[in-house]
C-alpha cells in the first residue's frame, strides 16, 4: 500500500493536503528556547510550602520509633508527619488488575507506616518554608529500626526462602503461562535448536526534570488544584479524588511544561500523594520536586529480567517454535494503578513477534524484591522481547551459516498475510516487515558494509553489524487497562473552537512532554478546518478545560488524540460552512474553507474570511435567519475499537567497532526504518525515533541500577549511573514506510517508543557480530568493557 491519501475534506470536496506530512517546526518552542517555559518548579504561589522526605536507609526494616522533636523545632518548619498522620488524609491502594489473573500485591500507603520495604521509601515528611529548611529538619529526625531480611536476587526471591510480605505466602506478584501446544513436537523434529540466557540490567528513566508536584488545597471550597508533571492528568484527578476524599469535579489537575517523562511520570508515587495530602491537611499549597539523588532511589526502575529462550528451526532456515522462561523482579509493591506485571506480560506477548512460526510456549514469573519499585518505562517489555528474539534469531542464523538478513527474510510474516493472529494471541491489522527489511538493507548499503567488514577484519579492525526486527504496541484500546478495572481512559477527546478573529483553539486531552503532541494537533486541526497553522492555539493538560481522556502513554497521542482532533476539525468545518452559507445566502455545498477564508468550492474565489464570519456569528447573529444558531465549537472523542492494540513494525541496524584490547565499543552509525502509518510530521517522528534509539543504546551499553547484597543502591547519582551523552552517540538515519490503520480517518499509528524498543537488540547483535571471529558472545546488558573482555577471555 502506498503513501496514505488522506482525504481531509468531506466527501465530494477537493483534496488539500494541508499540513499532514509536513515537517512543520513546533509552534510552542519559542518560549522553551528562551528559558521562558513554565515547569512546575518555576511556579510561585503565596504561602507556598516545601516538602522533603525522610527516607529509609534500609532495604527492609520495621520502623520501631520516629522522633520528630528536634526536627519540629528547626527553623522554618511547619510540620513533621509520619505515615499514620498522612493516612488520615490519604487512603492506601493496591495495584492489581483483574485481567492479570492471580496478581497480588499488598496495600501501600503514601508514607510507610509499619515498615520500609526498600531503601529510599519515605517514612516521614517535613513541610517547611523552604526546601533547604525542610532538608535541615529531615537531618534532625531520629529513627530506630529493626532490620529485616532483605531479598535482592530474583532467583532467591522466586525460591521463597525469605518472604517479603508474609500475608501473601510467597514473593510472586504475578505469573503467566502460555502454550499453543505442539512445542515439544516442534523441538523434537527440529534440525537446529539454539538456546541462550539473556540478562537485562535494571535501569531507570533519568528525566532531566525531577518528578514535580504542587498541590493547592482551597479549604474554603474543599477543592484541590494540583500542578503536576504527569502524563495522565485525568487519571490523577480520579486518583486524588478517590484517595483524598474530594469530589471529582472539585479536583483539577494541570500539567505545565514537563521536562521529559518517558513513562516515569505516568505512575502514582507515594511521596506525591503525600504532598497532596499535606496540602489538604495544612490548608496551603505544598510543593515537592524530587532531587536527583532521591530520583534514583524512588523514580520507578524497570527492565530487570533473566530470560531463557530456545528456538527450533529446520535446516532450511525456517523457525518452528520459540520456548521462553522469563523471570523478572520488581520492587516490594506493584505500582499503582497500572501494575508492575505489564512489562513481563508484554515479554510473553511479543517474543518472536515479527516471525511466522506457529508454536510458542512461555512461562513468566514476576517476583517482589526489596529494591526500588518498577513499572512501565518507555517501550515497556519491548526492548527485552525484541533483544532476546533478535539475539536468538541471530544465533540460529549463525548456526545455520545463513546471513542474518536472509534468515529474517525467510521468516518474517509476509506483507500480504494480514490480518494475522500471532501465537501469543495478539492480532496484527497490517504490517510491512519485508518492505521494511528491503528499505533498511538498501538505506544502509548492507552488502557494502558486509564487504567492508570482511576487509577490515583482515586488518584486525573488528566491526559488527546487528539487525533487530520488531513489532510495537501502539494506540491501545481499553484492553490494556480498562478491562482490568483500572480507571484509565483509552479514549480521548478534542474540542475545536473558532474564535471571533478567525483563530482556532484546540483543547485536547492528550498531553505534551516534548514529543510534539501540540504541534501535531495544530497541524491536523489547521488542515481539517482550513486555517493556516499560525492561527492555531493548542491547550492540553488541564482537566478543567479539555475533554476527558487518557493522556500520553503507549504511543497513543497522535493516533488517538489526533483522530479526535481530525474528526472535530471536520465537523467544525462543516458547521463553519453552514454559517457561511447563512451569511452568503448560498448552498453550503458550493463552499469550502481554504487558508483562513471561505471560498467557492469550484472556483476557489474568496467569499468571506473567517474573521468576518466570526464577527457575524458571535456579535451579529441578529443578521442571520431566525431559526439558525451558529455552532462554532465542536467536540469529538475517539476510541480505537477493532484492534486491542494497533501494532506497528520496524527494523533497526547498528554498526559498531570493537576494541578487543579494552572491550570498548564505538557506535559508528544506527539506522531505523519504521512503519507507523500516516506520518503527520516526519521531522517529529524522526526525532522521536532518534531519542528513543539513544535511550535504548543507554540500556545496551551504559545504564544499570547497581544494588549491593543488602539492597543498597550503589550508583544513585549522575556520575556513577551512566546515561548517554553526546560524545559517544552515533548519527541515526531514519526512513519511513506508511501503512495507515483503517480504524481511523487519520490512519496514524504510534511511534514514540519504537526507537527504544529496537535499539538494544540491534546493538547487542552488532557487538556479537563483531565478536564472531573470537568465538565470543555477550548476553548480559549493559555490555560493559568488563563483560566484553570476559567474553573474549582476556580476563
Amino acid at each position, binding site marked *: 500500500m502506498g503513501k496514505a491519501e488522506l482525504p481531509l475534506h468531506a466527501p465530494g470536496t477537493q483534496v488539500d493536503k494541508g499540513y499532514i506530512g509536513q515537517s512543520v517546526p513546533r509552534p510552542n518552542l519559542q518560549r522553551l528556547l528562551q528559558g521562558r517555559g513554565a515547569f512546575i518548579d518555576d511556579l510561585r504561589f503565596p504561602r507556598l510550602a516545601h516538602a522533603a522526605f525522610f527516607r529509609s536507609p534500609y532495604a527492609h526494616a520495621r520502623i520501631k520509633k520516629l522522633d520528630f522533636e528536634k526536627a519540629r523545632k528547626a527553623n522554618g518548619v511547619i510540620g513533621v508527619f509520619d505515615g499514620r498522620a498522612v493516612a488520615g488524609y490519604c487512603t492506601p491502594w493496591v495495584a492489581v488488575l483483574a485481567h492479570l489473573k492471580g496478581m497480588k500485591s499488598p496495600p501501600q500507603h503514601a508514607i510507610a507506616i509499619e515498615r520500609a520495604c526498600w531503601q529510599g521509601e519515605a517514612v516521614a515528611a517535613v513541610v517547611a518554608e523552604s*526546601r*533547604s529548611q525542610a*532538608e*535541615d529538619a529531615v*537531618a534532625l529526625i531520629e529513627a530506630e529500626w529493626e532490620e529485616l531480611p532483605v531479598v535482592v536476587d530474583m532467583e532467591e526471591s522466586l525460591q521463597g526462602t525469605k518472604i517479603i510480605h508474609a500475608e501473601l505466602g510467597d514473593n510472586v506478584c504475578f505469573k503467566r503461562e502460555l502454550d499453543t501446544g505442539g512445542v515439544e513436537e516442534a523441538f523434537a523434529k527440529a534440525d537446529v535448536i539454539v538456546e541462550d540466557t539473556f540478562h537485562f540490567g535494571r535501569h531507570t528513566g533519568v528525566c532531566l526534570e525531577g518528578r514535580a508536584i504542587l498541590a493547592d488545597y482551597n479549604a474554603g471550597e474543599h477543592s484541590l488544584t494540583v500542578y503536576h508533571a504527569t502524563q495522565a492528568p485525568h487519571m490523577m484527578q480520579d486518583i486524588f479524588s478517590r484517595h483524598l476524599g474530594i469530589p471529582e469535579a472539585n479536583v483539577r489537575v494541570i500539567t505545565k511544561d514537563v521536562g521529559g517523562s518517558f513513562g516515569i511520570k505516568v505512575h502514582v508515587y507515594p511521596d506525591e500523594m503525600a504532598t497532596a495530602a499535606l496540602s489538604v491537611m495544612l490548608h496551603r499549597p505544598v510543593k515537592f520536586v524530587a*532531587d*536527583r*539523588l532521591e530520583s534514583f532511589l524512588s523514580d520507578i526502575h524497570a527492565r530487570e529480567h533473566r530470560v531463557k529462550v530456545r528456538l527450533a528451526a529446520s535446516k532450511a532456515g525456517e523457525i518452528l517454535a520459540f520456548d521462553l522462561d522469563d523471570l523478572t523482579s520488581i520492587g516490594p509493591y506493584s505500582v499503582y494503578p497500572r501494575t508492575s506485571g505489564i512489562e513481563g506480560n508484554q515479554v510473553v506477548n511479543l517474543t518472536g513477534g515479527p516471525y511466522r512460526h506457529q508454536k510458542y510456549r512461555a512461562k513468566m514469573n514476576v517476583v517482589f524484591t526489596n529494591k526500588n519499585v518498577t513499572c512501565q518505562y518507555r517501550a515497556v517489555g519491548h526492548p527485552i522481547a525484541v533483544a532476546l528474539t533478535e539475539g536468538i534469531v541471530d544465533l540460529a542464523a549463525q548456526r545455520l551459516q545463513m546471513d542474518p538478513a536472509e534468515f529474517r527474510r525467510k521468516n518474517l510474516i509476509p506483507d500480504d498475510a494480514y490480518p494475522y493472529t500471532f501465537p501469543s494471541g495478539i492480532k496484527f491489522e497490517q504490517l510491512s516487515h519485508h518492505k521494511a527489511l528491503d528499505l533498511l538493507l538498501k538505506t544502509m548499503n548492507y552488502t557494502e558494509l558486509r564487504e567492508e567488514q570482511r576487509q577490515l577484519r583482515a586488518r584486525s579492525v573488528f566491526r559488527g553489524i546487528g539487525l533487530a526486527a520488531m513489532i510495537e504496541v501502539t494506540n491501545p484500546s481499553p484492553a490494556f487497562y480498562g478491562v482490568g478495572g483500572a480507571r484509565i481512559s483509552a479514549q480521548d477527546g478534542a474540542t475545536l473552537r473558532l474564535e471571533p478573529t478567525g483563530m482556532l483553539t484546540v483543547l485536547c486531552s492528550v498531553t505534551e512532554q516534548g514529543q510534539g503532541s501540540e504541534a501535531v494537533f495544530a497541524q491536523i486541526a489547521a488542515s481539517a478546518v482550513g486555517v493556516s497553522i499560525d492561527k492555531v492555539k493548542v491547550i492540553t493538560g488541564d482537566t478543567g478545560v479539555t475533554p476527558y481522556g487518557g493522556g500520553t502513554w503507549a504511543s497513543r497521542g497522535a493516533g488517538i488524540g489526533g483522530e479526535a482532533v481530525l474528526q472535530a476539525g471536520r465537523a467544525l468545518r462543516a458547521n463553519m460552512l453552514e454559517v457561511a452559507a447563512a451569511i452568503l445566502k448560498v448552498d453550503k455545498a458550493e463552499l469550502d474553507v481554504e487558508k483562513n477564508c471561505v471560498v467557492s468550492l469550484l472556483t476557489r474565489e474568496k467569499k468571506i474570511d473567517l474573521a468576518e464570519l466570526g464577527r457575524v456569528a458571535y456579535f451579529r447573529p441578529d443578521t442571520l435567519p431566525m431559526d439558525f444558531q451558529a455552532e462554532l465549537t465542536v467536540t469529538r472523542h475517539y476510541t480505537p475499537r477493532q484492534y486491542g492494540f494497533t501494532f506497528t513494525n520496524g527494523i533497526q541496524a547498528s554498526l559498531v567497532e570493537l576494541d578487543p*584490547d*579494552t572491550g*570498548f565499543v564505538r557506535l559508528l552509525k544506527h539506522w531505523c526504518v519504521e512503519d507507523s502509518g500516516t506520518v503527520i510530521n516526519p521531522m517529529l517522528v524522526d526525532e522521536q525515533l532518534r531519542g528513543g534509539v539513544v535511550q535504548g543504546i543507554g540500556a545496551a551499553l*551504559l545504564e544499570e541500577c*547497581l544494588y549491593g547484597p543488602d539492597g543498597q543502591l*550503589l*550508583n544513585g*547519582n549522575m*556520575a*556513577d549511573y*551512566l546515561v548517554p*551523552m*553526546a*560524545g*559517544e552517540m552515533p548519527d541515526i538515519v531514519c526512513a519511513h514506510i506508511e501503512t495507515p490503520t483503517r480504524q481511523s480517518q487519520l490512519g496514524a499509528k504510534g511511534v514514540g517508543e519504537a526507537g527504544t524498543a529496537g535499539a538494544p537488540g540491534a546493538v547487542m547483535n552488532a557487538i556479537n557480530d563483531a565478536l564472531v571471529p573470537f568465538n565470543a558472545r555477550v548476553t548480559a546488558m549493559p555490555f*560493559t*568493557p*568488563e563483560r566484553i*573482555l570476559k567474553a573474549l577471555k*582476556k*580476563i
Partner: protein
Amino acid sequence: MKAPSFAYSKPQSLAEAFELAEQPGAKVLAGGQSLIPSLNMRLSAPELLVDITGIGSLRGISVEQGVVRIGALTTHAQIERSPEIGRHAPLLAQAVPHIAHPAIRNRGTLGGSIALADPAAEYPACLVALGATIVVAGKDGERLVPAEDFFKGLFEVDLRPGELVMAAEFPALLKDERSVFLELARRHGDYAIIGLAAHKAAETRFVYLGAGATPVFARRASAASTLEDAVSVLDRDIDPPADLYNSSTTKRHLAKVLLARAWNTLTTSH
C-alpha cells in the same frame, strides 16, 4: 539536595587565608567543582568556607630558567589554552581535555585538584610523572614537597592545617624528551577507569591514575628495557582496587593495554 548551612569568608591576603584555613570546621574553597557537589549532597558539613580566589599571587603560569610554575588558582581552562603549557608541558596539555567538561574547567583549579587528590584525578599522576615539586605554604613559611611524596593516601596529602598549595613546579620539556597521556573512560569527561601519564626524560616514568588511592608510579615497569619486560612486571607495581564496574583484574588488564600503547608512542620516532 541543598547544602547544609555554613559561613563564608573571602580573605584578601595569604596571611589571612592561612589563619582562617586553620580554624576547626574550615574548608578551603577554590574552584568549588568538587567541594560544592559534596556540600549539595550533604557529604560534608563544614562550618566555614574560606574562599581563596581573591588572592592574586596564587595565579599565573610562568616559565623561567627551564622551570614551569603553575599557580594553584590556575584554572583547567587556562592550562588548556596556555601556549606555554602546550610547548613546555605537553603531558598536561594532553591531560586537561579529559577533565570533566568546559563549564567545569572554567572554574576548577590545579591547586584544588591536587589538594583533594581524587584517585582518578589527572594532575596528580602527571605531576608525579614530571617529577614535579608542590610548593606549599602556611603561616610558618613555605615548603617544597616532591609530588611523589605529596600524595600520601586516599584523599590524603601532605598539607598541614592552615597550609595551602601555592603552586606546582617542574622542568620544562627538553628537546629529546617525550610524554604521552592516555585515559580510558566510558564517556567524555567521566572519571577515568584508569589512566597513564608517561614521561620519558632522563628516566622514564609510567604513573597511573585510577589504579590506587594515590597516583601509582610503576617503578619496575618504568625501569624495564623492553615492553615485554615492562608488561610482565607491571602486576608487581600496581594493585588496583575494583570500582563499581571494573574488577581489579579488569583494571590490571587495562593498565597493561595502556602501558603498551604509551610505550609504543614514546618509542616511535617523530
